[in-house]
């Protein structure tokens, strides 16, 4: 048994690695980074109070911290016109965008860099020798790509400039613009170039850190991801385990009630009820319960949100537990109700088929009471499919927990996941994905152990 379990665990590692890799690469590959949304926006948010140079400094430290100035993977395929990633550290995102546009448009990254740095020189000269009439020109020179428009603007800038230093800078801009146009290769991007980046890439460094147990820091709160996960996982764990235990126990009891001959009417009543409950989406169910049971307009049975308040003195264990129960009852009720129909159905089918087996008939022929038959003979034999169901239901439960935690503001993994999705906080996202996947693998292993425990024949097959 042990070698088999070890083999399963070892086989799970490549799957985990592959998934984390895919999520990491996708998160870095697609446009719209966290930084452009948070740090560089000047209208609102935490960073908007600083000056332009402060924001630039914050951005550069962010780029260095996250390794965005390195190439993404061991190799890269891109046209030769694509500017290298190391320039990310010098230019902020709008400049990077402009550089990329120029490079692709004129087919040469060197000329594009030269042109862009000449406009930067012009900007610096304008800062020392302010000239209001040239502000507009500079803006166009830094935002446009079309040659005619740029040339006209540069020429008029040379003509308008009164200060000799500024004039010189403007002439340089015009000169570099003309060089760029002369050596223009519009369709240079059609030729791909394969380049080898070696170990100095984002993926390699991330992977090494991951193997050392460092999941990185959250973009949002700058706290280690591991600490965030540990903080959140406790709540989710208890919510999940308690509701799963309750659901399984309820499903078993209900199924036993339903297979008994006496309670036919219950069968007729319960199955449609479960069928209807099944078609109510979890979030609607949760909100309905919230509106009904935690609302001063109807029945205020439970507190609405969160996990309780911090009390000044240390609560005893029992007090803590009772407070926890108050806040957790409604989320648990929701989770149980949403997963009960499926599980009850499956358990009922499994018990029902065991009821028709020969050994049940024999037990009945011996004159055993119906309750004893079910509990002693039928239940043990139908345990095997129930274990499969219990491990299969986990994904649905996890999905349910995400929504329920968000609605009831329980600070668990699910809420952390939704918040990180909203904020595009990728390190946390990768951490959560890894935790969920590992959790699932462990569940499958436990299910395997459960099979071996209920049916010794399986144990012999596996060994």
């Amino acid at each position: 048994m042990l070698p088999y379990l070890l083999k399963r665990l070892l086989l799970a590692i490549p799957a985990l690695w592959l998934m984390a890799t895919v999520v990491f690469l996708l998160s870095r590959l697609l446009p719209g980074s966290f930084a452009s949304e948070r740090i560089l926006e000047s209208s609102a948010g935490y960073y908007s109070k600083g000056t332009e140079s402060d924001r630039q400094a914050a951005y550069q430290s962010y780029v260095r911290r996250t390794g965005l100035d390195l190439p993404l993977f061991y190799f890269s395929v891109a046209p030769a016109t694509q500017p290298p990633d190391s320039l990310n550290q010098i230019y902020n995102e709008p400049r990077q965008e402009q550089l990329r546009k120029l490079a692709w448009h004129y087919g040469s990254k060197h000329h594009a860099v030269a042109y862009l740095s000449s406009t930067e020189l012009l900007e610096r000269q304008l800062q020392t020798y302010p000239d209001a009439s040239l502000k507009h020109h500079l803006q166009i020179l830094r935002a446009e790509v079309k040659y005619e428009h740029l040339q006209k603007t540069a020429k008029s800038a040379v003509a308008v400039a009164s200060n000799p230093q500024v004039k010189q800078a403007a002439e340089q801009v015009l000169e570099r613009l003309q060089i760029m146009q002369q050596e223009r290769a519009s369709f240079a991007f059609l030729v791909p170039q394969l380049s080898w980046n070696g170990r100095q890439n984002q993926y390699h460094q991330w992977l090494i850190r991951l193997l050392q147990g460092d999941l990185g820091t959250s973009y949002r709160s700058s706290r280690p991801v591991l600490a965030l996960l540990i903080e959140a996982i406790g709540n989710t764990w208890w919510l999940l385990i308690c509701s799963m235990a309750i659901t399984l126990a309820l499903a078993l009891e209900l199924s036993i009630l339903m297979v008994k001959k006496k309670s036919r009417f219950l069968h007729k009543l319960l199955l449609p009820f479960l069928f209807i409950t099944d078609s109510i989406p979890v979030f609607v169910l949760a909100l309905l319960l919230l509106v009904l049971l935690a609302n001063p307009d109807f029945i205020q049975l439970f507190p609405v949100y969160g996990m309780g308040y911090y009390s000044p003195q240390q609560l005893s264990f029992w007090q803590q537990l009772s407070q926890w129960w108050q806040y957790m009852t409604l989320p648990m009720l929701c989770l149980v109700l949403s997963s009960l129909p499926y599980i009850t159905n499956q358990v009922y089918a499994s018990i029902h088929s065991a009821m028709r087996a020969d050994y049940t008939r024999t037990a009945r022929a011996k004159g055993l009471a119906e309750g004893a038959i079910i509990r002693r003979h039928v239940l043990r034999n139908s345990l095997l499919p129930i274990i499969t169901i219990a491990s299969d239901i986990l994904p649905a439960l996890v999905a349910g927990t995400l929504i329920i935690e968000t609605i009831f503001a329980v600070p668990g993994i699910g809420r952390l996941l939704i918040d990180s999705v909203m904020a595009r906080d990728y390190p946390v996202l990768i951490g959560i994905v890894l935790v969920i996947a590992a959790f699932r693998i462990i569940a499958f292993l436990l299910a395997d152990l459960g099979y071996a425990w209920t049916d010794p024949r399986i144990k012999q097959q596996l060994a």
Partner: protein
Amino acid sequence: MKQVWQNIVDLWRRKTAFQMAAGYLILLLLLVLVLPWLPLPYGPDKLDYAHTFQPPFEPATAPDEARHLLGTDGLGRDVFSNMLYGARTALLISVPVMLLATLLGLILGAGAGFYADRGFTMHRSSLLVLVLGIICFCYYGLYLPIQITRLGLGATALAASLITGILLLMLLSGFFVLLHKRVTFFRKRLAVPVDQIVLRLIEGLSTIPRFVLILVLASFLPPSVVLLSLILVLTIWTNVARLARAEMLRIKQLPYFEAAKSIGLRANQLLLRHALPNLAGPVLVAFTFGLGGLLALESTLSFLSIGVPTTLVSWGRMIANIRSNTSAWWLVVFPGGFLSLTVLAFYTCSHYLTQSFSKNSKG
């Protein structure tokens, strides 16, 4: 196919519950299609600041104003018209997505079941063309067009990239046709393990729960209906594929299919004429069931406002308004009830269809 239709007609005649559910769904579909021409007093996005959080069934305040039948939300949007338009959005997203996902799942699942690991063979040259062609397509058909539209290089650049891609593909295939004739190495046939590939794909997609997968993928892309639909199609095809594969394996064992094989029919005839009609029933069941689940999924995503733009009228968006005022029960009860009723109708249909088809395959 005829058999499937016969079954449905039969169910319609005998089961009142099926009749009710199917009738409701047909009416809903009609309503959704003619909705833009219906005279509703308020549009779904019409803001009415004079009546925010108005409870339902209240009389109109002014004689010349239409009343908000089912109340309003925090911005004075009419719940009734949002409910109807929400149904429209939900169905217009879910039905095409489910159709595409079913098609994809059917092709992959039936293919995997039919060909297994050794049944599908290719010439080495065609395989090489395929691999190189995919690489070519990724660069000229995906990467360059995306970059070109992002950087605003214009239509000529786009055309140049696509034409280069097509030319390159033609050159490639021409070159390999020549090689195929000359070199024996390229004429050998290679078995493509279709079954293994499809099974691994399904396994990979189900390593983490589907809802988490969809959330994670949606976080990478800007909120848009088209992209979200794409994500949904690419993640939910696995259910249909699993079912189609299992059914295909069952059909392959049936005597009539072996007979058809033994008289030397070609693979596509076997698949299309003999396997597909028998697959239609189970796939229809999976389709209706999946549609119900998809409606719930779509509303959940719009409730969390993940993956969909906030301007999209939907049940989820309306229900999400309750967060700012928990005593506004009508925001949950009406759209939520409508949603649950629709899901229930789909599940009921799928339940009866399952019963009818399982009876069929037994007798």
